[in-house]
């Protein structure tokens, strides 16, 4: 199974401008989030990237992609009908082949030299199956993610057979349905924001859109269906994902990238300086107010 295409969703109401933000990448260069994501994707051997955007956003994305713009193929989402709908919009663009999917509002900070997308694609190609990147996540964060339940693949340290997929489950549901033997108590495998999907995912999605209200279609339900029908794997990533849509999400991502990159010392100095200034002010008796 070859993975040469990718899908990036960036049309959501709260997320469409996030890929256009600029950050300082690990090598010290100022780049847009989109460009950083494209680096991740291209390193994995992807040749063409479908980007789902709100109609009219294309020029900004072209600019943000800079020299990688030629790899982009824009898919407009005419109405904001949700995440599943955004993915469904790209059906034709993806052309019935396996593809890598990244959400546009996440940044991925790798743990080693190799990128997470590259590792994920490699695993999907070897297994010839859908593979979702996952990360063990504490239960109080479940309200933010889709999560999977299953069993570890024998002989594989970080690979799981997915049996259930639930969208933002409560811990009550998670404990009953997403139990993964071997995982720490109170931790679940939550989506990392990166998947390799086979055409069967798009088929199942399409079937749902044909049969019901598009607003009611939840992508996790589709994946759950796929997991019941065919082999579906989850790969536990070593890197970290940062949700830029979170409060201080961009700042956290920037700090994580900065502390791993060329300017590590400088970033540390800056953080320490902020802390010292705050402490000095406190000792001098003028505690800054919360919104200062």
């Amino acid at each position, binding site marked *: 199974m070859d993975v040469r295409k990718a899908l990036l969703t960036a049309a959501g109401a709260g997320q469409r401008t996030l890929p256009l933000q600029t950050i300082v990448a690990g090598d010290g260069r100022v780049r847009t989030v989109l460009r950083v994501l494209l680096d991740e994707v291209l390193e994995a051997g992807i040749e063409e990237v479908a980007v789902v955007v709100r109609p009219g956003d294309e020029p900004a994305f072209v600019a943000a992609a800079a020299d990688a713009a030629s790899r982009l193929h824009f898919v407009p989402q005419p109405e904001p009908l949700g995440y599943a709908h955004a993915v469904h919009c790209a059906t034709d663009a993806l052309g019935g082949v396996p593809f890598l999917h990244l959400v546009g509002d996440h940044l991925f900070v790798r743990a080693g030299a190799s990128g997470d997308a590259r590792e994920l694609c490699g695993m999907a190609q070897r297994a010839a199956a859908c593979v979702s990147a996952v990360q063990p996540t504490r*239960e*109080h964060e479940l309200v933010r993610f889709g999560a999977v339940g299953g069993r570890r693949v024998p002989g594989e340290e970080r690979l799981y057979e997915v049996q259930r997929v639930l969208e933002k489950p*409560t*811990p*009550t549901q998670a404990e009953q349905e997403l139990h993964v033997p071997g995982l720490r108590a109170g931790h679940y495998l939550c989506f990392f924001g990166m998947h390799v999907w086979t055409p069967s995912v798009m088929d199942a999605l399409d079937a749902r859109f044909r049969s019901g209200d598009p607003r009611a279609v939840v992508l996790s339900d589709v994946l759950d269906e796929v997991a019941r029908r065919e082999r579906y794997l989850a790969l536990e990533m070593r890197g970290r994902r940062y949700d830029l849509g979170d409060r201080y999400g961009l700042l956290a991502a920037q700090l994580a990238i900065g502390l791993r990159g060329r300017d590590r010392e400088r970033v540390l100095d800056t953080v320490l300086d902020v802390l010292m200034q705050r402490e000095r002010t406190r000792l001098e008796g003028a505690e800054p107010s919360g919104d200062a």
Partner: protein
Amino acid sequence: MGSRFSEVLTATDPRVRDTSLAELCAPLGVADLLAACDELDAFRARAGNLYERVRATLFLAAIHGYELPRLPELPRAGRLSFTGYEQLLARRYEEAIATFSADLRCAGPSDTTCSALAAAYRGRAFQMLADQVRRSVRSARGNQWMFRVGHPAELPLRIRPELVARGTADAPFPILRERTPVRLDLTHSAWSDIFFLGMDFPEGARVINVSVDLGVRGRDARPEPPIETCLRVIDEPLLRLCSVDLEANVDLHRVAQVFEFARDYLGLLRAGVIAAGLVPPGLEGSGAALAPLLERLCGPGRGLELVTRVRDIPKGSRLAVSTNLLASIIAVCMRATGQTRNLEGPLAEGERRVVASRAILGEWLGGSGGGWQDSGGVWPGLKCIEGRLAQPGDPEFGISRGRLLPDHRILAAPELPDAMLELLQQSLVPLHGGMAQDVGPVLDMVTERYLLRDADAWQGRLRAGEIYDEILAALRAGDLRRLAALTTENFSGPLRAIVPWATNRFTERLIERVRARFGERWLGFCMLGGMAGGGMGMFLDPAEPPSARDALLELLLATKREHERGTPFAMDPVVYDFAIDRDGSAARLATGDDARMAPGYYALVVPDLLRQRAGQLGPARRRELERLGEPGWSGDELRGFLPALFERMLPSRQEARRGDVRSLRELLDLGGFDAELHERIRADLRAGRIGLAQNRLPATTTIEDVRPEDVVLADGELPATWHARGRAALANGEVAVVTLAGGAASRWTRGAGIAKALSPFCRFAGQHRTFLEVHVAKTRRVADELGVAIPHVVTTSLFTHDAIAAHVEETDSFGYRGPLLLSPGRAVGLRMVPTVRDLVFLYEERARQLLDEQAQKVRESLQSALIDWARSAGEGADYVDNLPLQCLHPVGHWFEIPNLLRNGVLADLFDRQPRLRYLLIHNIDTVGADLDPARLGLHVERGAGLTFEVIPRRIDDVGGGLARVDGRPRLLEGLAMPDDETEFRLSHYNTGTTWVDVQRLLEVFGLAREDLRDAVSVGEAVRRLAARVPTYVTVKDVKRRWGRGQEDVFPVAQFEKLWGDMTLLPEFDVQYHVVPRRRGQQLKEPAQLDAFVRDGSAAFIESLCRFA
């Protein structure tokens, strides 16, 4: 272990496994049994299987508690280790076992030490079982996370968006309303729904459980789900809890407040909120405010309001109202936070199971308990609930044979014909007999008998299992008559064989009357829940008109009236109309103008809102008040609103209370209340001159155990000469019996205020008999044997006189032909609000049994609330906030003897029986005391003024003893012990039974026979002697009843003088005779009854009686 004990404990063959302990022990002597105990102790230490360990531990408890004491060669008297006792109270059972075992090895076996070991092993066995249930509940999938949440920021739940959606900012938030039926157990499969039984013997754990809607006959138009729970978001950052039926509401601001289960009447709501995960149990003790938690849950500045309403189903209905209320609360909270798939409608099967397991968790948190079928109302219709063997993956696997939670299978057409459901609805009449009971001891007895495999109980259990199958078959066949016959057989056969205490005279008489009234049209009886007397069911011919139910109610009321003098009733009986609920617990979201709270809510909360200034109300509250005045708001929610509003806002109820106080005054006058003495006691109490701490003798007092020469051993065969001497005195008309019957059953009923003498406590000669009837029957036997008339005097008090007098008249003195005289009490006290000092002393200084971890938290929370109550009600103030009789107290049994002098009864006795010389005085609950001629002969022979009968102490005998005080033997009351440890140095316990030489008694009072008709001389003599006898302050429990069968228990201060203190008087020649336990045992609590039957005491008592 190579003995038969290990074989039985580890056997897989049921024929061996189900061998009874009694059969195993029958051929063994003391040495063999002690060797078996050593082996069992070693076995339980190494056994891996929980139930083998528990059963071995209960074997040990029973061998020490029943089998060894049964053997005459076991020495009686021994010493108790106070260290071991303290360990027992602190629930450190293993340490207590080690301490008492060391005592046994060191001093040799004795009845005393065996009783201590029995208590320790029994406590340990039940502790192991409770721990296992708790572990299973906590480790159930879906519940574990709640124990991991340690900070509000970790709360993983969010309110569903539908609950915060509203058109405009001042529109009301939607209300999620859950309506839940209660459950009725049609089969009563021998208490097989006790968790421990289901987890050990899942094959036998089976019930058919019906979800029912109810309406009180004559009040409600139609049956409806009795439980309603409403939840809504509010625009204040707090948790508001409100119970419409309990008329209580509270705003909670801190996490710690949510865990104060006994702070008010809202403990169940608190437990529900916690068990649903809204305030997860892991947060207990975090010290956090609720606002951040609620912000995470439902947004900044917002909170939640939870309102419950139970449609006046009285407590004790045996319909699992509280468990289903808990389940309803949990269900609505789970729905609101996305823990169920659907916000509205019925629950899915998996969700019902989570709700059920959390209801168990909630009950544990709230310190209460229920069975595994109790949340059956969450499921629809009829269902078979059956235990299941634990499988790999279950938390119970490898620990217990069965799972904690059973399986539910809904019975529906075609398996169950619809016509049968209709017949059932037309025939079965659920009712509430009105009795107030504590089923806890019954459930412990069931568990114990099951694990010991008592032969009768085990056969009963097996038969109950067969009856279950037959009931199921009758349901499937649509055979109502067969069904009713089977439930009746179940009650009269297996259930009574397993626990005789499941029934009572009231229930049996009721069945007789209903059967007589309806004849063939009465189809059967159905016992509900732990015991009969509260919730029950009668099957009538479906063709009976509705008026038959009214006739049933009349029979209930008449039977209650007949029994209420000696049986604790919380309320008048009730008959229900019922319907089978086809949905189970179901919810509906009300939005916009439909978003109205449960009926009764507004009448409860509006008065407080109106008392606030408009500016203090939040916008939503203001808007809610405005809406009350709008047209269209006149439905159920506002039914009775205006009268209730005025009732709350105007002090009409206080006027009514004043009326009660006036009748209290009348009673005080009638009872000989001494106002001057009362004021003096109040002043002393408030000033700290008297109190619980001041009851105690100075620490410098030398208190030792008595020496052998201080007592006469009379616990074996007594010489024929004494016997002849006693017979001669009896035949000569020298003896009368005095039964002290002034007591209002404070401990027997926890303050229900009935005449204990009239409590039909146990079956003798085929029927339930009262204490008084038993005492008279013993006198009759002796009188008949000797052919003489022996006077039997019954002392009464203001609390018991009318009831006893009426009962004696109705029963024609129990058919006794000798004189049966009543001696009315002449002294009464007015209870007071206790001082905080005494409450703290009681709760903190005195050695008290520690409860299970969660129950102890609840108790501490309650104690703290009661201390607040005492402070706010006024320490030492008159206690008047109750029924008048409940505000009064008897002033101790010391007065009951002087009353014989004051009220002329002794003078009458002399008139009737001029040769009268001896009195046998005994407490109402010392049921073994009788006119044993040999004991009388011994008393006569030794020429004592007073002879007190004592028994070798057992662990339960707490509250005094026979001691050498500063070198002189006397009876020392528990209240006077300088510390808790002293009592444990005393090897004999007072039975309360006294032989009195009347002439010497009169001399001590300074009176002659001729003076007895001179009221002034007698009064002075009594006052003179009373001043020489100590007065003790005590704190007793008193029940205050309200609502529909609800009861509160309050501590009240009172004073008393005790008969045993006559041994203080140096002019009396007092002797102490050691008698066998079965003669001297006092029955203070119903929980003692099982042992009373099991150890042969009941049979012994029956042999002493001759009933009319």
